[in-house]
């Protein structure tokens, strides 16, 4: 009935494993399975409207996965909010705290870059290659490489001024 399910599952399992936040690590399988079940519902409706295409399926799989991650994150938030004594929650470990702080400093420095460089560097930090960033931002690959190179140099200088050596 659904020939693409195996391939969708394989791709989603790999992608979720790379992207899923640590606090949902134990629920990766659930995220993928829930997303696939929703894809089934989506494709059933899509079949009725004759809109089932390969790209439609991939988009459906992606949006369903994001929805699942967001839904589980919200559920975690509610669970924490429901705890009567927030001080009872274990404090984050020192290294996590430090990484979190560096993450904030990176965002602060990004915000100081000129917009074209900020977007190029931002996409780079999100894992995009120059060709991909160029497609997203509607730019030439060479131009994107230059923006990223110069933007990363700016970012490094900004971080070093804060005492952070990349």
């Amino acid at each position, binding site marked *: 009935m659904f020939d693409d*399910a*195996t391939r969708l*599952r394989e*791709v989603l399992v*790999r*992608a*979720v494993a*790379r992207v899923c*936040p*640590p*606090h949902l690590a134990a629920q990766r399988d659930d995220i993928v*399975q829930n997303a696939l*079940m*929703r*894809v*089934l*519902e989506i494709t059933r*409706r899509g079949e009725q409207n004759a*809109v089932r295409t*390969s*790209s439609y399926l991939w*988009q459906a799989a*992606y*949006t369903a*996965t*994001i929805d699942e*991650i967001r839904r589980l*994150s*919200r559920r*975690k*938030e509610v669970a924490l909010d429901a705890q009567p004594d927030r001080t009872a929650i274990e404090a984050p470990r020192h290294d996590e705290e430090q*990484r*979190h702080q*560096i*993450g904030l400093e990176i*965002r602060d420095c*990004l*915000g100081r870059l000129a*917009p074209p460089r*900020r977007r190029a560097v*931002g*996409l*780079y*930090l*999100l*894992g995009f*290659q*120059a060709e*991909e960033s*160029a*497609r*997203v*931002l*509607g*730019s030439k*690959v060479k131009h*994107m490489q230059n923006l990223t190179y110069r933007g*990363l140099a700016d970012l490094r200088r900004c971080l070093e001024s804060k005492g952070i*050596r*990349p």
Partner: protein
Amino acid sequence: MSGEDPGYERLREVFAAAPDLAATGPECSDAARIWNAVRGELPPHETHALVDHALDCPACGQAWRLAREVLAESGEALPSARRGWTAAHWAAVAAVVIAAVLIPVGVHEWRAPGAPVYRADDRVTIHSLMPDGAALARDAFVLRWTEGPPGTRYSLRLVRSDLSVVAEVHALEAAQYAVPADALAGLSGNTQLYWRVEAHLPDGSEIVSDTFSVRLE
């Protein structure tokens, strides 16, 4: 340039590490727009706004990363990087604008009536009353779950790992369902199955359970 400097790789790792709770806000884009942006199908000003937001929002940044991963692995043909604004390009943009007007009807149709609706606080949740992965006999293949408020009706779907439907029922009044043996007739022993329940509450809202697994003995 990527990957050449280990310092930059570390920056990537730190930047990608979402906080414990990557909460979304009202200004967060829906996933479909992010998907279209990553495919290079949105006008530049829209994409710029989405990127700017994602760089300040870990949850949306995560959505961008996932879109990139899925697209890269999907093998989907994508438009190549732009080489300048040509007449053909403007025509493509016009097509995207037209599609943006028309497509959401189809894309979001599944969210319309009947689509899963999750409450913000998930006060009512549906859980399986059986151990995940439990083995059930063909002649006693009964799925059970926690009840909703009085008057709740349930829909249940049982599927194989390829998502082909084994059983689907609606308007159940009890929080359990005995799958008929004939629905399981074509399945071999030790087959892994997955099931999920939609609870239709008396107040008109719907709650969708997680997906649970079960095994045919």
